[in-house]
C-alpha cells in the first residue's frame, strides 16, 4: 500500500515532529511554571497565617509573675475555717509592706490589691490548705499579675499613651516599676496555658479543659467511627452484591461526606440531646456528632485502600482455598491498613478542628474546670478559640492566637503521623 498523501512531504515526517516537539516542550514549561506559581502562592498564604498568629500569639506563651513574701496572718486565716479565709487581705497586706503610703485610703488599697491576679488568693489558699501548719508563717508565693500589668510588662500597653486612655494609670505604673526594681517581677514560660482550665481572667485562662474535652471527643469519635467505618467499607467493597441498592448506598455515603458540618450539629441537637436526652456540652455527645462526619471519610478512605490491593493477591489466596473472609482479613485488610490508617488520621484531624457542630450541642459553654469524664460539660479546642475570640478582654487576643497555634500544632503532628505511618507500613507487592 502507498504511503497516505498526508504523510508524504519533502522533508519527511521528522521535520513536522520536530516542530511539534518544540511546541509540546513549551506547553510543558508553561504548566510547570503554573504549578510552581500555585504552590508558592499556597506557601505564601500559609506563611502569612503562621506569621500573624505567632506574632500575636507568642506573647501568650509567657506570663508575668509577681513574687511575694506573704505573712499568713492567723487573724485573717484560721485552721478551722479552711478553705475559707481572708486570703485576699493577706496578699494585700504583703503588698502594703512595699507601699505603706497606699494603705491610707480604701480606694488606693483596692487598686494596689488588683495588681496580682484575682486568682492569687486561690493559689495561696490551696498552698495553706495543703499544709495548715504554715498559718502564722511567711510564705513565698509566685502568682501571675493581672492582665493589664501583664500587658504593660509585655509592652502591649504603651507608656506614652495619655493617662486617661491607658488601662493602667501613672500610680499603677509606678508600683509595677518599683516591684520590678526590687526584682519581684519575673517573666516565665506560661505552662498555665495548657495546665489550667478556662477562667474569666485572661492571665489565668488555660486550655486544659479544652484539651481534655477535645481528647475525649476524639476518643469517642475514633471508637465509634473507626470500627464502624472499616466494617461498613469492608462489607460494601468485599461482600455486598453489586446492584442498585449498593450503588445507592455508595452515592449516599459520598454525599454524606460532603454535608456541611453544621447540619450534623443540628441533627445531633435534635436526636442526641432532644430525643435521647443526653447531657449538653458533653464531649461524649461531641464525639458522637463528630463521628457522623468522620465515618464517611473513613469509609471512603478504606474502600479506596481495599480497592488498591492488587487482585492477584486475592486470586493467590483464593487459589490455595482460602475462604472469602480469610482472603479479606488475612491478606487484603493487612495490605490496605496503611491507607486506612492514613485516612482515619486525616479524618480525625478534620474532626479535631471542627467547630460548628460542637457549638450547636453547647460545647461553647463557659466552664472553669476540666471534665473528669466524657459526660461532664466541657469545651473543645476549636470552641475554646471561638469563646476567647469572642471575649472583650484584651488579654484574650493573644491567648486566642496561642490557642490556634496549639490547635495547629496538634493538626501538624497528626498529619505528620499519618505520613510517617504510611511510609513505614507501605509495602510493595
Amino acid at each position, binding site marked *: 500500500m502507498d504511503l497516505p498523501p498526508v504523510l508524504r512531504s519533502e522533508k519527511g515526517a521528522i521535520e513536522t515532529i520536530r516542530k511539534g516537539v518544540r511546541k509540546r516542550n513549551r506547553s510543558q514549561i508553561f504548566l510547570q511554571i503554573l504549578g510552581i506559581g500555585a504552590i508558592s502562592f499556597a506557601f505564601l498564604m500559609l506563611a502569612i497565617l503562621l506569621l500573624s498568629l505567632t506574632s500575636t500569639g507568642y506573647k501568650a506563651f509567657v506570663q508575668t509573675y509577681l513574687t511575694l513574701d506573704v505573712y499568713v496572718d492567723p487573724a485573717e486565716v484560721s485552721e478551722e475555717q479552711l478553705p475559707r479565709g481572708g486570703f485576699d487581705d493577706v496578699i494585700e497586706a504583703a503588698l502594703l509592706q512595699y507601699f505603706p503610703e497606699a494603705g491610707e485610703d480604701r480606694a488606693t488599697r483596692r487598686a494596689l490589691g488588683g495588681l496580682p491576679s484575682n486568682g492569687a488568693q486561690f493559689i495561696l489558699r490551696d498552698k495553706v490548705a495543703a499544709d495548715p501548719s504554715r498559718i502564722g508563717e511567711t510564705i513565698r508565693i509566685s502568682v501571675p499579675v493581672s492582665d493589664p500589668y501583664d500587658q504593660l510588662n509585655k509592652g502591649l500597653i504603651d507608656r506614652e499613651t495619655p493617662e486617661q486612655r491607658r488601662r493602667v494609670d501613672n500610680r499603677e505604673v509606678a508600683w509595677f516599676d518599683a516591684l520590678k526594681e526590687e526584682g519581684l517581677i519575673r517573666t516565665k514560660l506560661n505552662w498555665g496555658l495548657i495546665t489550667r482550665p478556662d477562667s474569666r481572667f485572661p492571665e489565668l485562662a488555660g486550655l486544659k479543659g479544652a484539651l481534655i474535652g477535645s481528647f475525649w471527643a476524639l476518643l469517642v469519635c475514633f471508637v465509634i467511627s473507626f470500627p464502624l467505618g472499616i466494617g461498613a467499607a469492608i462489607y460494601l467493597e468485599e461482600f455486598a452484591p453489586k446492584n442498585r441498592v449498593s450503588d445507592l448506598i455508595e452515592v449516599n455515603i459520598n454525599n454524606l461526606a460532603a454535608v456541611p458540618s453544621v447540619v450534623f450539629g443540628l441533627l445531633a441537637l435534635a436526636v442526641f440531646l432532644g430525643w435521647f436526652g443526653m447531657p449538653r456540652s458533653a464531649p461524649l455527645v461531641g464525639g458522637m456528632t463528630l463521628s457522623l462526619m468522620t465515618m464517611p471519610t473513613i469509609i471512603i478512605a478504606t474502600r479506596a485502600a481495599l480497592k488498591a490491593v*492488587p487482585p492477584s493477591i486475592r486470586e*493467590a*489466596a*483464593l*487459589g*490455595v482455598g482460602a475462604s472469602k473472609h480469610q482472603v479479606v482479613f*488475612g491478606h487484603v485488610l493487612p*495490605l490496605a491498613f496503611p491507607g486506612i490508617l492514613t485516612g482515619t488520621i486525616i479524618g480525625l484531624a478534620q474532626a479535631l478542628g471542627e467547630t460548628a457542630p460542637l457549638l450547636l450541642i453547647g460545647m461553647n459553654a463557659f466552664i472553669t474546670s476540666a471534665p473528669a469524664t466524657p459526660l461532664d460539660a466541657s469545651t473543645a479546642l476549636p470552641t475554646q478559640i471561638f469563646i476567647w475570640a469572642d471575649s472583650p478582654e484584651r488579654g484574650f487576643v493573644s491567648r486566642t492566637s496561642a490557642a490556634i497555634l496549639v490547635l495547629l500544632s496538634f493538626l501538624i503532628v497528626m498529619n505528620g503521623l499519618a505520613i510517617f505511618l504510611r511510609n513505614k507500613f507501605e*509495602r*510493595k507487592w
Partner: protein
Amino acid sequence: MVTDSSSTQPIRETARPVHQERTKISTHEVDVFYGAAQAIRKVSIDLYEKAVTAFIGPSGCGKSTFLRCLNRMNDTIDVARVEGTILLDGQDIYDPKVDPVQLRARVGMVFQKPNPFPKSIYDNIAYGPRIHGLATRKSDFDDIVEWSLRKAAIWDEVKDRLDQPGTGLSGGQQQRLCIARALAVQPEVLLMDEPCSALDPIATAKVEELIAEMKMEYTIVIVTHNMQQAGRVADRTAFFYLGDLIEYETTAKLFMNPREEQTEAYISGRFG
C-alpha cells in the same frame, strides 16, 4: 458425550504410549458468559488423571476463562456466569452442596503472573496448610515447607532465607514458589495459566522439568502460547478458537496431523 468418570479414551497412535487412563475432570457443554458476551461455547472435554493437558489458542479465545471454571475461580467475577456440567471424579463441582473453598484445595492454581503473598517465603508455603488445618505443630509445618519447596525445585535457592519476603525473589523463583505454595495443600489437580510467560528460558526449563515430574502424581492442565512447550510437556493438547473447542487430541497427533484446518493454520503459524 462421555460423562462417566470411569470411561476411557480410545487408544490412538501416538509417539508417547498412552495407556488406560482414568478421567479426572469431565465437562459437558460448558458455556461461560461475561454479562451478555459469551466467552466459551459448549465445551465438552475429558481431562485425564496423571497426565498433562495443554490448552492452546490465539489470545482472547477463552483458555483462561475455561481453566478458571475448573476450580470455580470465575465465581469471584461478578459478571461471569457458567452453565453446563463440570464433573470432578464424577461429582458436579457446581452443585450447591460443593464448597468452592474445598474444591480449590483439591484443584490448585498457578497464575500467569507470579503472585506470592507479601509475606515470608515460609509463610507463603505454610499459609494453605494452616487455613486447611493440615498441620498444627511447628515441626510439621517445617516438613511441609521443605517438601513443597523441594518438589518445586527451589529449596536449595531459598533454604537459607525462608524468613525473607517472597516478593524479593526473582520472577522465575517467585513462580516456582507459587507452584510450591499450590503443592503444599496436596491438590489432586494443578491448573497452570501460562506459568512460564514471565520467565527466561532457564527458569522455563526448570518449570517444565517440574511439570514432567509432577505428572506422576497430579493431573495437570497448562495454558500456553508456546507450541514447543505444549509439544514438550503435554500428553494431550486442546485447541480453542473464539470460545469453541476446535480440536482435542494427543499432542503428537494434533501437531503432526491435525484434523481441523483452523488447528493446522494456528500451529503452523499462519493465522489470520
